[in-house]
């Protein structure tokens, strides 16, 4: 990064149900309020309680977008967290761990993957260290890493006595205590935390009192320490005001509401559910209906769209598979419906809470037969809002289904962002029949540009037929070959119209130097690490450019062809095995990647991945296809 661009990665890990979310929420809000930019990553298991989960908070003095693997401060609520993250601690980092966990044998960690266990076992045996937390800590003793071994049982006991609560109740403050200790070590004023706790645990007086006391005890404890850590918060270089703090799910929900969405039928599925639940908390005129399955969610959305309401649904891969037939109906009947697709690891149940970009080709081709659809994607939390908003305009202008495809990574990435510019948002509703004639209107009228005006179900003097069967202009079944040919062309040509009308900045964005001899082409949530990497490459004197696609279907062939020079090296980065975007690129512009950087571990690309492998590519040491561990 540039000289004055500094960041600290704070990571907290523990068992699900032990307050990882509350802890990172508190820490993020405190840091954001101090004026820092915050980037959060949330990693969790498909489980309610007990399995490991962690949360990253990247505290920076500029608006960083990229997740990093290496943590500067690691807060471990349990031994498993240390086992999983010890190898990702920075040289001069700080580890905070409950002292009672130190005696734990790694053999007893029932949820720690066997692969990690055997790897750690090998490492520890090599050094003749015990297979325990003590052994793990010995591994880093030669580094400059500080280990803060917190006597939490003492803190717990004093909380128990002070508030006359059970041991288990007092134990619940462990997360906040460790947050307080890390905040104290970073010289964050205690009062910043104390005031946030009331916000965090709204109206729960006893919980607030208990956690405030835990914060006091945490700061008191740090005062007793003699620590020589160089770890500091970044220097604040700019003042930011009125920033919002939200994740991809919320950003999309807000974009939908800003677009005037009236109804969202949905079926619960990770990681899409959070969006619908958030919509339900909002006081506005839209309604959220939980359906029996995704077949019902999409078809209910279609039924609602016929009335002129703006509609959407939200799902992940398994649900999207079920929606294929409804998507086809919407295509055939030229119904504007927005589907937000949060990709997760597939196929089948796959990795329900992990990330992947495995549904790109499916989103473009889902459904039998040929029908037009628009597929768009977003690169960061801010884009999620504007793209969710635009999706409705596209859907209504071109009267077709719009799929807004993002992934679990972006859904749960939280960011401090500039307030949305809502002033320039224009709702474009497309064409409607203004007057009726009491007869059935030609709902599918042949027009020059393929767009027929549509009536709203129930309007005075207007009647119409719609049909999933091939139909005439008036919506009656018609199997005549000439009519069929014209209808197929009418529907298909709408994509050409969309391609000619959608502005360039809604199709793709370009970062870095246009003359660079190496271009990274990618899509979706990879934007964050790629954009951050470009800056870092620049400081290293390496000239790299990036093109992030936003409109994935119809594909912006002409625009991309104009951008790509014949003799430059192309690197495609995507989070899947098959290189689905690269295939699309080859199919559409006749040229694919010189190097394909793929990751299909269920985890998102980290900044380190891009730096490492793209540097290899630059120095000519890389394979054509690179699979990131």
């Amino acid at each position, binding site marked *: 990064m540039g000289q004055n661009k500094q960041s600290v990665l704070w990571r907290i890990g523990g068992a699900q149900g032990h307050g990882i979310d509350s802890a990172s929420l508190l820490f993020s809000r405190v840091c954001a309020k101090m004026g820092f930019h915050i980037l959060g990553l949330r990693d969790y298991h498909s489980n309610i309680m007990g399995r490991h989960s962690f949360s990253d908070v990247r505290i920076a003095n500029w608006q960083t977008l990229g997740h990093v693997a290496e943590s500067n401060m690691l807060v471990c609520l349990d031994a498993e967290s240390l086992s999983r993250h010890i190898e990702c601690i920075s040289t001069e980092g700080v580890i905070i761990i409950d002292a009672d966990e130190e005696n734990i044998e790694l053999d007893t960690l029932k949820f720690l993957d066997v692969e990690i266990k055997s790897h750690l076992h090998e490492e520890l045996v090599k050094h003749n260290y015990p297979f325990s937390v003590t052994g793990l800590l010995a591994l880093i003793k030669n580094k400059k890493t500080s280990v803060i071994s917190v006597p939490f049982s003492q803190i717990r006991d004093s909380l128990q006595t002070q508030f006359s609560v059970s041991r288990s109740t007092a134990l619940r403050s462990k997360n906040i205590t460790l947050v307080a200790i890390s905040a104290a070590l970073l010289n964050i004023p205690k009062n910043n935390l104390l005031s946030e706790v009331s916000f965090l645990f709204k109206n729960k007086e006893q919980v607030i009192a208990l956690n405030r006391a835990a914060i006091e005890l945490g700061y008191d404890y740090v005062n007793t320490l003699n620590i020589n850590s160089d770890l500091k918060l970044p220097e604040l270089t700019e003042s930011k005001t009125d920033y919002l703090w939200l994740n991809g799910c919320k950003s999309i929900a807000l974009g939908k509401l800003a677009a005037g969405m009236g109804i969202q039928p949905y079926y619960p599925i990770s990681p899409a559910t959070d969006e619908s639940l958030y919509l339900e908390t909002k006081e506005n005129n839209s309604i959220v209906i939980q359906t029996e399955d995704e077949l*019902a969610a999409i078809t209910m959305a*279609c039924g*609602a769209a016929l009335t002129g309401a703006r509609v959407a649904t939200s799902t992940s891969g398994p649900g999207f598979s079920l929606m294929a037939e409804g998507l086809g109906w919407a295509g055939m009947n030229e119904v504007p419906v927005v589907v937000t697709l949060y990709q997760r690891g597939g196929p089948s149940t796959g990795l329900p809470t992990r990330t992947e970009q495995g549904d790109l080709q499916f989103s473009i081709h889902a459904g039998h037969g040929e029908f037009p659809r628009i597929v768009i994607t977003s690169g960061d939390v801010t884009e999620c809002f504007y793209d969710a908003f635009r999706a409705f305009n596209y859907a209504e202008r071109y009267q077709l289904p719009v799929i807004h495809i993002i992934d679990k990574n972006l859904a749960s990435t939280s960011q401090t962002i500039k307030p949305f510019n809502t002033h320039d948002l224009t709702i474009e509703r497309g064409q409607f029949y203004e007057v009726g004639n009491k007869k059935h209107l030609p709902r599918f009228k042949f027009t020059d540009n393929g767009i027929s005006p549509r009536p709203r179900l129930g309007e005075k003097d207007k009647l119409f037929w719609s049909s999933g069967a091939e139909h005439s202009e008036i919506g009656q079944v018609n199997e005549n070959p000439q009519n069929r040919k014209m209808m197929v062309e009418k529907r298909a040509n709408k994509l050409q119209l969309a391609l000619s009308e959608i502005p360039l900045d809604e199709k793709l964005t370009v970062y870095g130097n246009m003359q660079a001899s190496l271009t990274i082409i990618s899509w979706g949530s990879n934007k964050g690490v790629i954009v951050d990497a470009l800056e870092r490459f620049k400081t290293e004197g390496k000239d790299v450019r990036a093109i992030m696609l936003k409109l994935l279907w119809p594909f912006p062939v002409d625009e991309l062809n104009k951008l790509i020079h014949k003799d430059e090296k192309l690197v495609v980065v995507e989070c899947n095995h098959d290189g689905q975007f690269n295939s699309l690129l080859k199919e559409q512009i006749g040229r694919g990647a010189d190097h394909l950087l793929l990751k299909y571990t269920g985890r998102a690309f980290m900044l380190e991945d891009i730096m490492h492998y793209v540097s290899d590519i630059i120095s000519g040491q890389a394979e054509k296809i690179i699979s990131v561990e």
Partner: protein
Amino acid sequence: MKAKEFSADVQNDWCAGCGDHGILHALEKAFAELGLAKNQIAIFGGIGCSGKTPYYLDTNGIHTLHGRVLPFASGAKLANPELTVIAVGGDGDGLGIGAGHFANAGRRNLDITYLLYNNGVYGLTKGQASPTLRQGEQTKAMPQPTMQNDLNPLMLALTAGFSWISRGYAYDIHQLSSLIKNAIKHKGSSFLEILQPCPVYNNLHDKQWYEDNGITDYPRIYSLEDEGYDAVIPVDANKSLRDKKFTESVMKSLEWGERIPTGLFYQDLSAVELTQQINLQKPSYCSLPPAKQPLVDKNNKNSLDIQKLFSDLKI
């Protein structure tokens, strides 16, 4: 308006003698007698012969997907509660591929009317067994008798939670149109099973079978109303009365053989309809349902108050 005015000027391709013709006439008659405006009616059809009904009515008509007619219809009603929404489909559509939607549309108790044309066969694919054909029965196009058990549409509707349940007969247009009228008037999810002989593929249950039980001079089908059966659960009913009525309806739904009951089996006036439930949580809903929300003002400017959406996200 006259019943005929609800008939669309479209060539009908149902077979001669098909029960569907009777249902179509009963629908037209019901609309006329209720004095409904054409633009306020939205008929959704499933897939199969029955699913073509929307093409033949001079109202709004939407031909949907196999099994999905209920969610389509529900979406329209939720977005615009002023509409009179009717879903029609066959027994294969509603009880086979669409059974999940059948059960959930019932419990949702949204004010829509669902007409299930029950003929025991898949007509349009030329005569396979539907979920209402009884085990061991073999209609004329089937290579073998069906090995699977049938299901009871009325009992399924009862347990699913439809708050108005009845059975009609396709050739008794007088009773059928009156049942359709009551189904539309009922504020809640209405289920009307219609015994609809398929003259081409179901040779076992034809017009003669329904109208002559082979034993007495009386037809096999009879009207519950004629026998004084009271199916209504009043608004203020207590649990024991509700349970009693429910049990009686279950027993009636089991009657099939020498005598087959038609008419109203069950009506629960105490069940709260879904749009009313939504309005309790979202008081703006009934006055500003999704279809009626003005998104832009006269100058085509966004008329939504967006800024308040962000209040909980400020640091």
